[in-house]
C-alpha cells in the first residue's frame, strides 16, 4: 500500500531523534515532566510530517512547478519579474518565521521598526527570486552569482556587521519556512522543465539564491542604524513555559493559516489566468493544500509543545551537571538525526532523486546532509559553550562553499546551496536553537550573540558537504567512463 509506505517512511525519519532523546532521558538527564510532553509532541510530529509529505507531493511541489513554468511561458520579461517579485514578497511576509526574526532584530536594536523590517525582508526575497529567474534564463553560471553575492555579503559584514552578524546569517535560513521552501524549490524545477537544455542544472539553486536576500538586507539595514546594545533582551529567551496543548495548537493553527492563505490565494488567482487546469486537477490541488495545512499545524504544534522546552532543559542541564565534554559529540549526533525530521529536507531529497531519475540516490544525499548539519550543531554548541565569534566559522565556511562551486558539477552546486536554506527548518530553528540557548545559559555566555547564529551555521555546512558529494560523484563517474572505454578497446 502506497499510504502505508509513506507512514513507514516518516516513522523512520523521526524515529532517530525520538530514540536519541529517550536514551538521554533514561541514561543521562531525566526530563521529568517534560518527557510525556516530548512523547506527545513526537506523535504529533509523526502525523504532521506524514500529512505534510502528502501535501507537498500533491499540492506544493506541483503548484510551484506550474507557477515557475507559467511565468516563463508568457515570454514577457516585465510580467515574469513583476509577478515573480510579487510571489516572493507575499509568501515571505506571511511567513511566521519572519515575524520571529523581526522580534529578534528589534530585541537587538529597538530603533528598528518591525513592520518596515518585515516588508524589507519580503522585498529582498522578491528581488532575489527575480534574480533566480533571470539567472536561469540568461544561463549565468551559478558559481559566479554566489561568488558575487557572498563576496558582497562578507564585505558588508566585515564593515558593518557588528551586533547584527549572527542574526543576519540566521535570517537567510530562517525566512524560508516549511511551506515556502517546497514552492520556491519547485519554481526553478518548473522553469527547467520548459527551457530546452534546462536539465543540466535540473532547476536547483532558487532557494540558495533567495536565501542571500535577507542576509544582505539585514546587513544593509545595520549600516543605517544607530548603535544600541542589547541588555535585558535575552532574559526571556528559553523561559520554560508549560503552556497547554490546546493553546499551542491554536497558536500554530493561526500561524499556519497566515502562511498558507497567500499560497492558496495565488493558486486560485493563477488557475483561471495561467494554469487553466481541469476540474479534477484543481480538486486534487485543493485537497493537497488541506493536507499541507493540517500537517504543518500538527508538526509545529508537536515541535512547540514537546521539543522546545526539552531542548532548552537538556542544553542547560548538560552543562550544569558537568556533561559539557560529551555534549559536543552528542550535538553532532543530534544535528545528524534532526535532518531526517525536517519537512523541507524530505521534499528536496525527493526532488533530487526525481530530477536525476534515480541516478542520485536519496540515501547518499541524506548522509552528506546529516554530516553537514551534525557539524553545524557541534560548532554551534562549541560557540555557545565558549562564546567564540561567528566569524571563525562563517568566514572559512563560506569561503570553502564558494571555492568548491568551481570544482563541483553545476547541478550539485544548486542542490547544495538549496540544501542550506532547506536544512534550516522548524526543527533546527526551535529544538536545536533551544538546546544552544540552554547550553549558553548554563555556560554563562550571552545567548543573543553566542547561541544565535546556529541557524546560519546549519544553512552553511550542508553547502560544503553536499558539494563534496558532487565532486565525489563526478570523480566516480569519470573513472567508470574510462573503464568502459578501456573495456571497449
Amino acid at each position: 500500500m502506497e499510504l502505508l509506505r509513506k507512514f513507514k517512511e516518516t516513522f523512520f525519519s523521526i524515529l532517530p531523534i525520538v530514540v536519541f532523546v529517550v536514551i538521554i532521558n533514561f541514561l543521562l538527564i531525566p526530563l521529568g515532566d517534560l518527557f510525556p510532553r516530548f512523547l506527545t509532541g513526537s506523535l504529533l510530529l509523526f502525523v504532521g510530517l506524514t500529512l505534510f509529505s502528502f501535501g507537498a507531493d500533491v499540492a506544493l511541489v506541483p503548484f510551484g512547478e506550474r507557477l515557475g513554468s507559467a511565468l516563463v511561458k508568457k515570454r514577457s520579461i516585465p510580467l515574469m519579474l513583476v509577478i515573480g517579485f510579487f510571489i516572493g514578497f507575499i509568501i515571505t511576509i506571511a511567513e511566521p518565521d519572519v515575524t520571529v526574526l523581526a522580534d529578534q532584530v528589534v530585541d537587538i536594536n529597538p530603533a528598528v521598526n518591525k513592520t518596515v523590517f518585515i516588508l524589507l525582508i519580503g522585498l529582498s526575497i522578491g528581488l532575489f527570486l527575480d534574480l533566480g529567474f533571470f539567472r536561469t534564463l540568461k544561463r549565468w553560471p551559478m558559481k559566479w552569482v554566489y561568488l558575487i553575492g557572498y563576496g558582497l555579503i562578507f564585505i558588508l559584514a566585515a564593515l558593518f556587521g557588528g551586533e547584527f552578524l549572527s542574526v543576519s546569517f540566521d535570517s537567510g535560513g530562517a525566512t524560508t519556512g516549511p511551506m515556502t521552501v517546497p514552492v520556491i524549490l519547485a519554481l526553478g524545477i518548473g522553469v527547467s522543465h520548459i527551457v530546452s537544455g534546462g536539465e543540466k542544472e535540473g532547476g536547483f539553486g532558487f532557494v540558495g539564491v533567495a536565501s542571500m536576500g535577507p542576509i544582505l538586507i539585514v546587513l544593509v539595514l545595520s549600516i543605517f542604524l544607530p548603535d544600541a546594545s542589547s541588555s535585558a533582551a535575552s532574559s526571556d529567551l528559553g523561559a520554560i513555559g508549560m503552556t497547554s496543548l490546546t493553546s499551542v495548537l491554536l497558536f500554530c493553527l493561526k500561524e499556519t493559516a497566515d502562511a498558507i492563505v497567500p499560497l492558496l490565494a495565488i493558486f486560485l488567482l493563477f488557475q483561471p489566468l495561467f494554469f487553466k487546469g481541469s476540474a479534477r486537477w484543481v480538486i486534487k490541488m485543493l485537497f493537497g493544500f488541506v493536507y499541507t495545512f493540517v500537517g504543518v499545524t500538527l508538526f509545529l504544534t508537536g515541535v512547540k509543545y514537546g521539543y522546545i522546552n526539552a531542548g532548552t532543559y537538556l542544553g542547560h542541564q548538560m552543562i550544569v551537571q558537568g556533561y559539557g565534554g560529551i555534549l559536543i559529540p552528542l550535538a553532532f549526533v543530534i544535528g545528524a538525526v534532526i535532518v531526517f525530521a525536517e519537512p523541507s529536507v524530505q521534499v528536496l531529497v525527493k526532488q533530487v532523486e526525481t530530477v536525476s531519475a534515480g541516478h542520485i540516490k536519496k540515501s547518499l544525499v541524506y548522509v552528506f546532509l546529516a554530516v553537514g548539519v551534525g557539524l553545524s550543531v557541534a560548532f554551534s554548541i562549541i560557540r555557545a559553550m565558549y562564546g567564540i565569534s561567528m566569524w571563525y566559522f562563517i568566514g572559512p565556511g563560506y569561503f570553502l562553499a564558494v571555492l568548491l562551486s568551481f570544482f563541483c558539477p553545476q547541478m550539485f552546486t544548486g542542490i547544495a546551496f538549496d540544501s542550506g536554506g532547506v536544512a534550516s527548518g522548524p526543527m533546527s530553528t526551535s529544538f536545536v536553537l533551544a538546546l544552544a540557548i540552554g547550553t549558553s545559559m548554563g555556560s554563562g555566555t550571552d545567548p543573543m550573540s553566542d547561541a544565535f547564529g546556529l541557524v546560519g551555521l546549519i544553512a552553511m555546512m550542508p553547502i560544503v558537504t553536499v558539494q563534496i558529494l558532487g565532486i565525489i560523484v563526478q570523480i566516480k563517474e569519470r573513472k567508470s567512463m574510462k573503464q568502459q572505454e578501456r573495456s571497449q578497446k
Partner: protein
Amino acid sequence: MKYLEGRLLAICVKKGQCDAAIGWAKTHGAKGATVMYSRSFSSHGFLRAIGLGDVEMELAVFLQEGTEDFQCSDFQKMGNLTGFALVLDRKENGMKKEFKLITAIVNKGFGDDVAEAARNAGSIGATVLGARGTGTAEDAKFLNVVLVPEKDVVFLVCPESISEKVVTAIRGVKELSAEGSGVVFQSEVSEFVKLGGPKAE
C-alpha cells in the same frame, strides 16, 4: 537502412522494485535497461477522489536482441514485484493479439483526466510519465532560450476488445477537445502479464 532485430520488453513496477528486476534480468542475458520514473493510480476510487491516489512507479525498458532467455511471465515468477510487464514486437508472429497498448500524449496536467476517462471506459489502470515536446518553429525564443511545452504521456494496456471504446473515451475528454491538445494511438502488445496481487494495475 538496417534495423536491429529485436523486441521491446517493458516492465512497470512500484518504486524501489525496479533494481531487483533489472538485476535479475541481467543475470539472464539482458545487457541493460533504461529506467524512468512514472506515476500510476490506486485502484481505490475514494483515495483518488481525495487526491491521495497517486502511486509512484518505475518503468524499465529492455531492448531484447535475442541473447536473453526470459519472458514477461518470468518476472511474474519473481513474486515480489507489483505492476505489469509487456512486450512490443515488430515482427508479426501470427499470434492473435489479446492486448493493445494505448498511448496518449497530452498537455501537462491532463494525464489524470485521460486515465480517469479510460477507467470509465473499462480499462483498469494507467501509467503517466512527465515529458516535454519539442516546440515548433513559431515558438519565439525568450531571452535567447527556446521554450518547449510540457507534456504528460499516458500509457495504458487494455484488452483488444475494448480498445476502440477506450480511445473514443479519451478523445471525448472535455478539456482535450481543442485542436492541438495531444495525440492518442494504439500499438500491438504481443505479451502482457500482471505482476503481484490483485492491487496491481
